């Protein structure tokens, strides 16, 4: 594997291998000295064209825990801000001979373009509404840890599917791992033709009780201005996941950041069935595993992690 651009490029075996590697790194993260020398002397560039807290910080930590040198560039205050094109920025950064470029962009296909312009390995940290493959991997990691496997798990993804790259990557990843996926949300926020990805689509929460996992998406305030939903109040009324709608055996997930009281009720967020904290924690180990997979390769990492 040279780049991580889309979940589509990963076989189930690829995903399992990355998650296995992540298990070893999760162990490292529990130590007092959370560092292994796997990427010593190599450079990882984080190039973020969008605001991000958990993805950018976890990529930075992941690279540092692998002993890489890390450069993080945000669009604000950089040459990007001065109108430099993506191509010129990438070619400039490539002059530093980075081993990997991690890119977050508001535009679909940006990571794929970057991969064509640099000899570095490219990791897609979110491209427009297209994909967010490391989020899907960390979600699969979190679920596999809790359930043992995803085979035959019934997973519902609820909310603004239309604008969600997390939904697109997770539909693909969960299904590849053997789960069944249903997407659910207001008709205005379910993209026409999404069933072509192999999932079911519905606008009704009937059947949610059958789900093993309820994965809730962030509902953004600006969706009201575009008349996707008449009001957040009405959205919450119809689609908020709360203790009344959730049964105690179900697992609850959310990619963050949460709008408390909109897509999730406070008591649901704070309930023991919520895996939201586990997801964040998994982010570092899984991103370490992705960097390791792309930059070091598949040799057993017991030696490195030990």
């Amino acid at each position, binding site marked *: 594997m040279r780049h991580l651009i889309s979940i589509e490029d990963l076989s189930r075996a690829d995903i399992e291998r990355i998650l296995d590697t992540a298990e070893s790194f999760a162990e490292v993260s529990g130590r007092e000295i959370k560092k292994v020398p796997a990427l010593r002397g190599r450079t990882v560039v984080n190039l973020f064209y969008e605001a991000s807290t958990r993805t950018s910080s976890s990529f930075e930590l992941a690279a540092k825990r692998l002993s890489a040198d890390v450069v993080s560039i945000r669009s604000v205050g950089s040459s990007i801000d001065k109108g430099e*094109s*993506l*191509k010129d920025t990438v070619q400039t950064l490539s002059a530093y001979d980075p081993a990997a470029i991690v890119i977050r*962009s508001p*535009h*679909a*296909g*940006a990571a*794929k*373009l970057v991969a064509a312009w640099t000899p570095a390995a490219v990791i897609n940290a979110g*491209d*427009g*509404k*297209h*994909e967010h493959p490391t989020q899907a991997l960390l979600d699969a990691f979190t679920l596999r840890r809790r359930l043992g496997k995803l085979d035959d798990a019934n997973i519902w993804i609820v909310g603004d599917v239309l*604008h*969600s*790259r997390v939904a*697109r990557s997770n539909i693909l990843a969960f299904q590849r791992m053997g789960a069944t996926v249903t997407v659910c949300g207001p008709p205005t926020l379910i*993209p*026409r*033709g*999404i*069933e*072509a*990805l192999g999932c079911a689509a519905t606008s009704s929460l009937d059947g949610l009780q059958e789900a093993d996992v309820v994965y809730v998406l962030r509902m953004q305030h600006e969706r009201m201005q575009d008349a996707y939903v008449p009001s957040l109040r009405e959205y919450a009324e119809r689609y908020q996941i709360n203790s009344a709608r959730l049964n105690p055996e179900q697992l609850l997930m959310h990619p963050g950041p949460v709008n408390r009281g909109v897509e999730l009720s406070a008591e649901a967020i704070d309930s023991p069935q919520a895996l939201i904290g586990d997801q964040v924690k998994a982010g570092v180990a899984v991103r370490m595993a992705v960097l390791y997979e792309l930059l070091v390769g598949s040799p057993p990492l017991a030696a490195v992690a030990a």
Partner: protein
Amino acid sequence: MTATSGEKLFCRERRPVELVVRNGHVLDPRTELDGPHDLLIRDGHIAELGSPGSLPAPEDGELFDATGMHVFPGFVDPHVHLRTPGQEYKEDLGSGTAAAAAGGFCAVIAMPNTDPVVDDPAVLGSLVGRARREAGVPVGFLASITRSLGGDELTEMAALADAGALGFTDDGKPVVSAGILRRALQYQALSGGVIALHEEDPALSRAGVMHEGPISARLGLAGIPSLSESTMIARDAALALYEDARVHFQHLSARESVQALAQAKQGGARVTGEVTPHHLTLTDDLVRTLDSRFKVNPPLRAEPDRRALIDGLRSGVIDCIATDHAPHARHEKEVPFEQAAMGTIGLETAFAALYTELVAPGELELALVVERMSGGAALYGLPTPRIAPDEIANLVVIDLDRAFEAGAQGYASKSENCAFGGRRLHGRVLLTLAAGGVAFRERMLVEAASAR
């Protein structure tokens, strides 16, 4: 410099050609020629049609051996963007008409969405002057319907027609207001000239960048539903019928649009339609690559839409082929799909793409494609190229068997944003005669001629 009365196509002067095209398979559906002939062209006009091998080369003239090749009436493209004035870094009158000639076109009609917009007789007058100096094949011009393409104030349509405009369009944008369009249709009775419409309801297309369907859902790209086009065609066909106006619908892309056009024609509206080679041969499946060359407006749609466009062209619901040749500089396309400019160049690949993808596999008759490739002329009141004695020489010689990789040797266009780039196509243009002069000669022939 303004046009003399009635003159609607402009081109730099050329030496009239003296030539015999020997033993080519002449196919002109309008004159019902379909077989091997010699053609004598004297003083830029077709002087004689003879049996194969019968006509000697003229004195001081050339003999072009077209054995095994086809000779068609020259193509006419009613929809190109020559980007002049103001965006000459994408294309200019010289490079755009060189691309046209390389594709077998003997005339093109340029769109007015330039910078400044062709919304004023002075702008048009200067363009006409430049075309007389720079254009390698005759160019006709449309002026805009509304000032600055703003959609709210009519241009001086009658004065623009007097200055040489063949018709009017806000191409690139729809005329959103039915009220403004109605005024333009009424005013057409005074100005003359076809009103050509780019149909798109912005309330439905919004910020869309591709066809709305399973692939846009997969990619997370904002979709443009087919209805954004077809509902506007239905609306404007009704207006055209009511005002008895002459309306042409540009670059149809959707099955529903073909249906709307068929209904309008049945109802008696004076409406016509065009379709591009890319909409006839490519679908939104290609957008999966997120390659910005496939970002066009209207968008590439789904396979049932493509089938409906082919059927519409075959049945005559769609009157002609237009390339919507839309050059963009590399930096405008070498960006993520959502940010990329919309459009593909098409003049140099139009015939070969249609021949390779539709004629060779048996989907469309060669004669039908040849006829539709110049169908746009009559729609705009221009003479249709014909292969017959006394006609001015507007013809193209093509080797259907000769294959080439699109773009492998570069393009005559200044831009390289070609949706067919890299494809292996059959049907190489070898010689184009436009308005009685040699407009294009395939490079190998030029080299052979200069070596002699």
